[in-house]
């Protein structure tokens, strides 16, 4: 009958006014400007370095370093390269960051929960800890711990001995160092197998409990797997072949103890300072997280007859984690970056070794600073990505 009147087509908008096209153009311009700035800056720097006759480039990483470092996690000597010195510093930074993050988390949770304790003394002590520690500059605390550690320990000739193979003095803690024979991989493999078995057992026990409500002795079984298996392998090897793992014991030398594994006082002081400082902040984050969980949850758990310990562990903390994780990530990043204060107490971290000695010996400031920044950026981004992934797993799943 009648044709439906077609809606009049809007006149095709001018290309210039198309928001999509505009958006793309703006982005291209922005990227071009950034690339141009970076290029200009880089070529300017290279030009100026050449004019000032300062060596440039990364070739120095292959030159012999000529200096020694006390704590090295890889074989390193004065005949190694600057590149090796970089790795030594990097590993030392990662070591103190890893130990620090784990210990600070434990201590932080402990203090945070203690602050909410119904026990008056426990709660007040925790409050005093937080208020004292987080209000003092970290640098001051590091120096305090370093001097405190050094001054309170005896000199090597009067070492404190625990038994005949563990010694403590102002050069550090000396413990027996395991020496692995070629067969030792069997013991290590048994240990790895034990860990896998323990995890498998725990997963099965969890399923069984969910299905039937029956509990299994997870903890004792895990210890059995993780400790028992390697011990068994060790004993068997020692009986049928040679002892796969012997110990290098520290013995007294002219000045220091020789042999054994030495934990340097610099590492102890730095870890202590970072852990105690960061734990104060983590404690506050934990407290805030727990208080964010509705009190009804605790009351409901109590009404069901769940013990207070279980209430905290199974009901409150899992919900609090959603609030805790994002700020906790920042604290982990802070701890890692703060470890660069190691420079004042002689701990050979990345900044001390690479931005200190290497930069000075080679004079290549731009390369050294850029590499160090890239390292901290990489560590921080990796930590943040992991925590974001963990956070996404823990976050409320909206259905």
């Amino acid at each position, binding site marked *: 009958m009648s044709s439906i009147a077609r809606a009049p087509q809007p006149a095709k908008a001018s290309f210039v006014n198309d928001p999509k096209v505009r958006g793309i153009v703006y982005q291209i311009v922005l990227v071009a400007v950034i690339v141009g700035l970076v290029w200009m800056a880089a070529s300017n720097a290279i030009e100026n370095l050449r004019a*000032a006759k*300062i060596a440039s480039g990364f070739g120095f990483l292959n030159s012999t370093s000529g200096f020694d470092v006390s704590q090295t996690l890889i074989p390193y000597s004065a005949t190694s390269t600057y590149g090796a010195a970089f790795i030594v510093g990097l590993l030392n930074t990662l070591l103190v960051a890893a130990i620090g993050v784990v210990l600070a988390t434990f201590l932080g949770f402990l203090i945070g929960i203690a602050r909410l304790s119904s026990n008056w003394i426990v709660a007040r002590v925790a409050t005093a800890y937080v208020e004292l520690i987080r209000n003092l500059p970290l640098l001051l605390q590091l120096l305090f711990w370093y001097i405190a550690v050094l001054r309170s320990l005896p000199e090597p000739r009067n070492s404190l001995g625990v038994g005949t193979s563990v010694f403590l003095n102002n050069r550090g803690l000396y413990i027996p160092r395991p020496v692995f024979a070629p067969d030792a991989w069997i013991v290590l493999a048994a240990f790895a197998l034990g860990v896998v078995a323990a995890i498998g057992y725990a997963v099965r026990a969890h399923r069984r409990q969910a299905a039937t409500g029956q509990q299994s002795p997870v903890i004792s079984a895990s210890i059995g797997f993780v400790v028992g298996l390697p011990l068994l392998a060790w004993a068997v090897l020692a009986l049928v072949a040679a002892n796969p793992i012997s110990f290098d014991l520290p013995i007294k030398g002219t000045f220091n103890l020789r042999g054994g594994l030495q934990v340097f006082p610099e590492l102890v002081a730095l870890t202590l300072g970072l852990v105690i400082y960061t734990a104060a902040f983590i404690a506050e984050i934990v407290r805030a997280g727990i208080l964010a969980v509705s009190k009804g949850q605790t009351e409901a758990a109590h009404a069901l007859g769940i013990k207070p310990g279980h209430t905290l562990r199974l009901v409150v903390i899992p919900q609090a984690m959603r609030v805790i994780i994002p700020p906790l990530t920042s604290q982990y990043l802070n701890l890692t970056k703060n470890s660069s204060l190691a420079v004042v107490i*002689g701990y050979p971290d990345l900044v*001390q070794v690479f931005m200190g000695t290497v930069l*000075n010996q080679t004079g290549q400031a731009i390369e050294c600073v850029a590499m160090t920044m890239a390292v901290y950026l990489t560590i921080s*981004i990796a930590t943040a990505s992991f925590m974001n992934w963990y956070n996404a797993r823990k976050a409320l799943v909206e259905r």
Partner: protein
Amino acid sequence: MTSKFATLALGLAVGLAGVGLGASGASAQATLNNVKQKGFLQCGANTGLAGFGVPDAQGNWTGFDVDYCRAIAAAIFGDPTKVRFTPLAAKDRFTALQSGEVDVLIRNTTVTMSRDTTLGLDFPAVNYYDGQGFMVRKKLGVASAKELNGASVCTQQGTTTELNLADYFRGNNMKYEVVAFATSDETFKAYDTGRCDAFTTDASGLYAERLRASAPDDHIVLPEIISKEPLGPGVRQGDPQWADLVRWTHNALLIAEELGVTKANVDQMLKSDNPEVKRLLGVEGSFGESIGLTKDWVVRMVKGVGNYGEIFERNVGEGSRLKIKRGLNALWNKGGLQFAAPIR
């Protein structure tokens, strides 16, 4: 997203560094004009080494190196107080000079080939011949550095000391544990607290630092000198006029001592008949003008700080707290190495 940030951060860093160097690069050609325009000399100094460069409670700097800064200021301005000091840790000193933060670095710095050739710096003179030594506690019963096998040694990082230490122990097939700190202050404090068995630095530094020990008499300096440490002022490469000025400042101070021109008698010496004295003090010739200064530049310096011998005695010599003998630093005609090219 993150990688974009990384690139941006790196680019910015490189850019800022480039801009900084660019600014200094332009002024490097005319350090003297720049100094004259500012009205003072910016001198890179030690963070605190008794006898060489140390500020007192009022912020007045004194010391052997400090007097060299004052001598240059006196030569330029006729006033030895027209100096500002930038205290620099060993590891920061070259960057500060390269970037133009200081005009001259006079901070017991060892001249080495790599420093001279790859850092973009020049070392026009050697004002103190030194060598590296060790200090230990007396009660250890050690009489020689050769007995230090297995010792912990405290040292300052970013120094030739750190490298010589590694060489010495490697060369003698001995083991040691190095504990390196950023400043001489931290290094010595750690040694004094008992962290290390031995403390090592240039011999002059050992005598200076021992004064700061909680009980100076409990420590001894071992007899071995394990390295050559020619200490001298550093300048940026590419400004020959400024390097000449620093070199001839040192030479003139030596010649003044050689000819017996002192702070006290410099005015009478102006009337001397000795042609060498006449040239030194600008009565004859115009040598000061050839380095961009006035004829009486040496008169100004000697009036301000005295000659080389006076500077040495006042700060580190037998009359000072450090009680260091002239030794290698005596004039060439008195058995030492200090030998100045003549002014003519």
